[in-house]
């Protein structure tokens, strides 16, 4: 077990009240495994990742409970100094928007090299050589010539490759990629996803892939965790979830994708809106939008039921959902 998140809770204090962004999330990632965390905006998928990385803005954020066990140590109990040694060296993050995550006034070579000078005390010259190596590795053409260029001189896909190079620099054991291809065009998105999957296999890292795109994860993920209103509602191996979802929310998401074989028909749409995190409905958070909701859903929060040894679903009626999917 590389990483285990146990009952993590994160709140944000705002003027209007306390927003519960993450309400008891549990997931695990093994060495060399790709876990896709799927959810819409506000589902808590990015906040969970930020809590793992230790880059949550506190305040207004606050970790209200839970544990994040990484390689046997609870990260939440570490001092900031020790935490900093983990961050970057043992785990690294790739962000959605490469342009705003890179420093516009430093050359990309300096930004990649900084990891080596800070974490490993390497000389600047050696760090630059390492930077060229890494840029080669993420297939940036003419890396030797481009190492001194600035972020604005690269295209979106190339900038995302530089982000990947920085994340890989110290060969971490875990990479968290937060919507790494959302800002890219489809043809470039395919390039970047292929590259990420390949490097992950090569280096045997654990990968948490955060996304809202059901299509992107189908190709690369081993397991999927679906989040809704700060909770995991379903986890399953990737193939099983697409064939037979065990939660009505997952089912609704899958059905609302326009399939290539049906056109012009009305799309299935999940009715209503995601809940306001300051007023999460009692019982199952999805109940106001759920076509299967019964009285019990409005009062009792469903635990993560065991569907099979590898699958969990937080739905009182997971059996019915599973059967309806056939």
């Amino acid at each position, binding site marked *: 077990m590389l990483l285990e998140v146990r009952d993590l809770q994160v709140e944000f204090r705002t003027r209007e009240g306390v927003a519960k962004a993450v309400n008891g999330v549990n997931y695990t990632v093994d060495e060399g495994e790709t876990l896709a965390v799927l959810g*819409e*905006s506000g589902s808590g998928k990015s906040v969970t990742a930020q809590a793992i990385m230790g880059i949550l803005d506190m305040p207004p954020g606050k970790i209200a409970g839970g544990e994040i066990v990484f390689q046997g140590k609870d990260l939440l109990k570490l001092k900031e100094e020790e935490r900093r040694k983990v961050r970057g060296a043992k785990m690294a993050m790739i962000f959605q928007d490469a342009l705003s995550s890179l420093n516009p006034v430093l050359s990309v070579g300096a930004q990649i090299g900084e990891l080596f000078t800070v974490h490993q005390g390497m000389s600047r010259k050696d760090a630059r050589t390492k930077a060229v190596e890494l840029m080669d590795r993420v*297939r940036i*053409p003419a890396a030797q010539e481009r190492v001194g260029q600035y972020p604005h001189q690269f*295209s*979106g*896909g*190339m900038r995302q490759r530089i982000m990947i190079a920085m994340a890989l620099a110290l060969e971490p054991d875990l990479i968290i990629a937060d919507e790494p291809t959302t800002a890219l*065009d*489809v*043809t*470039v*998105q*395919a*390039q970047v*996803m*292929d590259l990420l999957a390949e490097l992950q296999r090569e280096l045997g890292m654990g990968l948490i892939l955060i996304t*809202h*795109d*059901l*299509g*992107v994860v*189908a*190709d690369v993920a081993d397991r999927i965790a679906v989040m809704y209103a700060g909770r995991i509602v379903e986890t399953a191996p*990737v*193939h099983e979830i*697409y*064939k037979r979802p065990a939660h009505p929310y997952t089912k*609704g*998401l*899958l*059905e*609302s*994708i*326009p*399939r*290539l074989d*049906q*056109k*012009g*028909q*009305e*799309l*299935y*749409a*999940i*009715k209503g*809106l*995601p809940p306001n995190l300051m007023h999460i409905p009692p019982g199952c958070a999805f109940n106001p939008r759920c*076509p*299967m909701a019964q009285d019990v859903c409005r009062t009792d929060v469903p635990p993560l039921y065991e569907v099979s040894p590898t699958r969990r679903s937080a739905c009182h009626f997971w059996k019915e959902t599973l059967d*309806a999917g056939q």
Partner: protein
Amino acid sequence: MSENTNSTTAVADVIPGQRDADSAPLLQVRDLKKHFPIKGGFPIRRTVGAVKAVDGVSFDVHPGEALGLVGESGCGKSTTGRLLTRLYEPTEGTVTYNGQDISHLNRRQLAPIRSEIQMIFQDPYASLNPRQTVGSIISGPMEINGINPPGGREARVRELLEIVGLNPEHYNRFPHEFSGGQRQRIGVARAVALEPKLIIADEPVSALDVSIQAQVINLLQKVQREMGIAFVFIAHDLAIVRHFSQRIAVMYLGKVVEIADRESLYTRPRHPYTHALMSAVPNADIDAEKKERIRLEGDVPSPISPPSGCRFRTRCWKAQDKCATEEPPLVQISGSNEGHLTACHFPEEPTTVDRGEDIVLDPALAALEESGENA
């Protein structure tokens, strides 16, 4: 289960076939160009070049038809949309609406046409005035055009809110009180307020969450069907475009490279770029047969100095000398269906059957794989 699945009525595919015979096109676009000048130099700022955002685009839109416009960012699809609504004035070429050339009309001459061509924008946060109530946003078009519907404007606004699935009681609320999906519904209500004949929808669902996208697509489809409005639907999401549009034009670097009806384009793409674009779309259907993956190398070239000849040649795996010297015309090539036009010297076979293995177009990747074999 829910009422949604039961009411999956098919949208009539009325358009292809009878279209050419009995209806004149609502909108005719011929060789449309928009070049944005680049100013530079000191002390006198001169024009030193031009961004050729749209560089010779031609197509027709028929009444009640939905035409999809797809392409990657920077291909000129949004600029085309803005030219059609005359938010921009074309550099060259013509836009003919209902038989009238509107490409260089002035403000006053355009006024009567403005009410018939409406636009829905991508960003529902930026396209609604935060200081106006929903009521005044939606009644704005009626006020400007001096339209007084029977029962008054307020009643009409309430009716429109109902049509787009919002609570008519929210008449006096401000945009910030609504979610993204609801704001896009307000945008739709404003666009249909004057019962236009043509709506240009520029990425109307790209900014929305997956579960909300389907709701807005269904709304647009309902509006299209019930009010008989023609749509130019601009998007980069091929699955959504295919779902919504009867005919689709694929753009690359300011030009249409292929245009065809939906069936023909998706089952028998002839242009290598169309083929690559489709194969790059990740498929959520895990059971689907593994498609051949075409990985394109590099990025779209700069529209300031586009490649000579065929613009796709720098990324194309079929490019030959001819592609650099001769620009391929947009024509129906042998083996294509009626109305399926392609601009390519060396088109793909009219089929999408597997070729067996991946075409790897990234030279770095190819080199890596080779060295891996040698080691």
